[in-house]
C-alpha cells in the first residue's frame, strides 16, 4: 500500500497545483517521490501539529487543497479541536491522513498507537472518514476524497497485509463491498487491516460472506441493514476500539432497526500494556486470527445451531 500511496500523492500534486502536502515533520520515505516531483508543494510545518491544521484551514480558504499528514495518534487525535473548529465547522476541503492507525507502532507504545480515531471523528459533522483495506481501496478512497468539497480523514493502518481486491472498486462512497461470498447464516464485516483477517477466518469457517467497509462516514446504511437482515448475526472486525468505530456503527444500525445480532470484535477499552511485534499485540488484544477463530466459534456455539 505504501508505494501506491506515495504515487497517489505525487500524482495528485502533479495534476493539480492547488494540492499541497503538509507534514508535521513525519513521513521520511513516503514523500520521496512527492518531493522529487513537486518540491514546491511540500511543506514541512515542523513538530507543531496544531498550527499545521490551522494553516491548512487558511490555505483551503485561500483556494488550495491541503493534505495534512501525520501519525494517527497526532492527526487527528492531538488536533481534534482544530479539525472540528478550523476545518469541519466551515466544511473546508482539507484531507487528513492518519498513518500507522491501530497498533502498527507496536514497539513504541501507547503514544504512537491509535485505536480511538474513528470514534473521535465520527461525532464531528461534515467530515468523510475512509479506512482502506488494500492498495485498490486506498486508490479508490483517495480519489473519492480528493474530489470531495469538504473535509476527509483517511485512516492509514497496517499496510502490508496484501490485497483483498483484484481491481479498483467501482462503487459509491459509503457502499460496503463484498469481497467473499457465502451461504452461512452469519457474515463478517471488516474495515482496514481486518478485512484480510476476515477473509482468512471465512475460509476457516466455510461458506461465510465477507464485506469490506472502506467508508465509515458516509456509510450506506440501507445496504448495511439489508446485509444484517439477510443474516442472523454479523461479526464486525476492526483494529480500533469497540467503542465508537465500525462495530458501534453496525450495532447502532441494528439497535435502531433491529432484526440481527452484532458481535463487535475490536480492541477492548484498554491500552497496549506490553511491547512486542504487531502480531503479538494483535493477539494480545484478541484480534489475531487464532484468537478471533476461538472467539467467533464460542459466540456461534452460544447462539446454538442454525434454525
Amino acid at each position: 500500500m505504501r508505494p501506491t500511496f506515495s504515487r497517489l500523492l505525487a500524482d495528485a500534486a502533479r495534476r493539480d497545483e492547488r494540492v499541497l502536502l503538509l507534514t508535521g515533520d513525519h513521513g521520511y520515505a513516503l514523500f520521496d517521490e512527492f518531493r522529487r516531483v513537486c518540491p514546491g508543494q511540500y511543506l514541512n510545518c515542523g513538530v507543531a501539529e496544531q498550527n499545521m491544521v490551522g494553516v491548512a484551514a487558511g490555505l483551503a480558504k485561500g483556494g488550495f487543497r491541503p493534505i495534512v499528514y501525520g501519525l494517527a495518534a497526532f492527526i487527528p487525535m492531538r488536533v481534534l479541536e482544530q479539525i472540528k473548529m478550523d476545518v469541519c465547522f466551515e466544511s473546508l476541503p482539507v484531507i487528513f491522513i492518519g498513518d500507522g492507525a491501530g497498533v502498527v507502532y507496536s514497539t513504541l507504545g501507547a503514544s504512537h498507537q491509535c485505536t480511538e480515531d474513528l470514534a473521535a471523528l465520527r461525532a464531528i459533522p461534515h467530515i468523510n472518514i475512509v479506512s482502506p483495506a488494500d492498495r485498490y481501496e486506498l486508490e479508490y478512497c483517495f480519489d473519492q476524497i480528493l474530489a470531495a468539497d469538504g473535509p476527509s480523514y483517511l485512516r492509514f493502518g497496517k499496510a502490508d497485509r496484501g490485497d483483498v481486491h483484484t481491481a479498483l472498486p467501482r462503487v459509491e462512497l459509503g457502499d460496503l463491498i463484498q469481497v467473499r461470498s457465502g451461504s452461512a447464516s452469519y457474515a463478517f464485516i471488516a474495515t482496514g487491516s481486518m478485512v484480510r483477517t476476515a477473509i482468512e477466518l471465512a475460509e476457516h469457517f466455510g461458506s461465510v460472506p465477507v464485506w469490506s467497509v472502506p467508508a465509515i462516514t458516509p456509510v450506506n446504511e440501507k445496504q448495511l441493514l439489508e446485509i444484517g437482515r439477510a443474516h442472523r448475526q454479523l461479526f464486525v472486525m476492526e483494529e480500533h476500539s469497540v467503542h465508537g468505530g465500525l462495530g458501534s456503527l453496525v450495532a447502532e444500525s441494528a439497535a435502531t432497526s433491529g432484526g440481527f445480532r452484532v458481535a463487535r470484535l475490536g480492541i477492548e477499552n484498554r491500552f497496549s500494556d506490553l511491547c512486542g511485534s504487531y502480531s503479538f499485540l494483535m493477539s494480545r488484544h484478541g484480534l489475531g486470527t487464532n484468537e478471533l477463530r476461538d472467539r467467533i466459534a464460542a459466540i456461534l456455539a452460544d447462539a446454538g445451531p442454525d434454525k
Partner: protein
Amino acid sequence: MPKGAFHAPALRKTVLEMAFAGSSVHIGCAFSIVEILAVLYRSHLRLGNGQPKSAGRDYLVLSKGHGVMALYACLYELGWLQRDDIDRYFGDGTRLKGLSDVHVPGVEVTSGSLGHGLSVGVGLALAAKRKGTGQRCYAIVGDGEMNEGAIWEALLFAAQFRLDNLMVIVDENRFQAMGTTADIMMLGDLEVKLRAFGFDAVTVDGHDENALERAFSEVKSAANARPKAVVARTVKGKGVSFMENDNIWHYTRLTDATYREALRELDAA
C-alpha cells in the same frame, strides 16, 4: 458621526447597545480593541468591492473571538450587519453569537477557542503569498490568548515561511479571564519576544489612533521578509470609567443603571 467613520465612541456605543440588548458578557474584551479595529477599517484594510467576500481583499482575523462585539460594531458601520442584528443580539434564532463565527458576513475566522485564529490567518497569508495576490492578513490576538502554545507555533511558522504580508496585532490589555497576565501567566516584554521570533515589532498606545496609524504604516513599510507585529498597549474596558481595568467586565452584565451611566460617558466622549 456618519456611518463608516469608525468613530471610536460610536463603535463603543454600538457594543454597549448590543451587550445591553443581549445581556452579554465580554464587554471589556471588546472595548480594548476598538481603536485598533477603527484604524484598520478606516485606512488599512482593502476591502475590494466593499462586499464581505470580495476577491483580493485583505483579511482581518479576530483570533481573540471574545472581542467580537467590537468587530460587529464595525461590520454594522460597513452595512454588512443590520440594526436588527444589534437590537436583537442573543435573541432566539438570531445569527450573531457571543464568539466570532465565520458564517457571519465579514467575519473571516471562527474563534472563541483561543489560539486557533492566528494559525488560520497564517494559512491565509501563506495562500496569498503563494498566489502572489498582494493580500495582507491582519490578525488580532489577545495577550491572554498568548498562553496558548499554538500561538507560538504560528509565530515560528510565520517567520520560517517569511510571511511579510502578515501583521500580528497583540491586544495587550494585561488581563485574562481570571486576573492579570502578570499574576496568571507572565508574558514579559512581548515586543522583545516577537523580535526574538523573527518579527519586525513595535509597541504602541493601543488607544491612540494616530500612533496606531503610524505604527501600522511603519512596520508595513519595512522591505524585508519578516512578518510584522504591533504590540498595542490597551486598557480592558477602555472608554467607560468604571469598566476600565476592572476585570469584572469580562463577566458582568449591564443593568439599567450601569447601561445608562456608560451611555452617558460615551455620549460625552
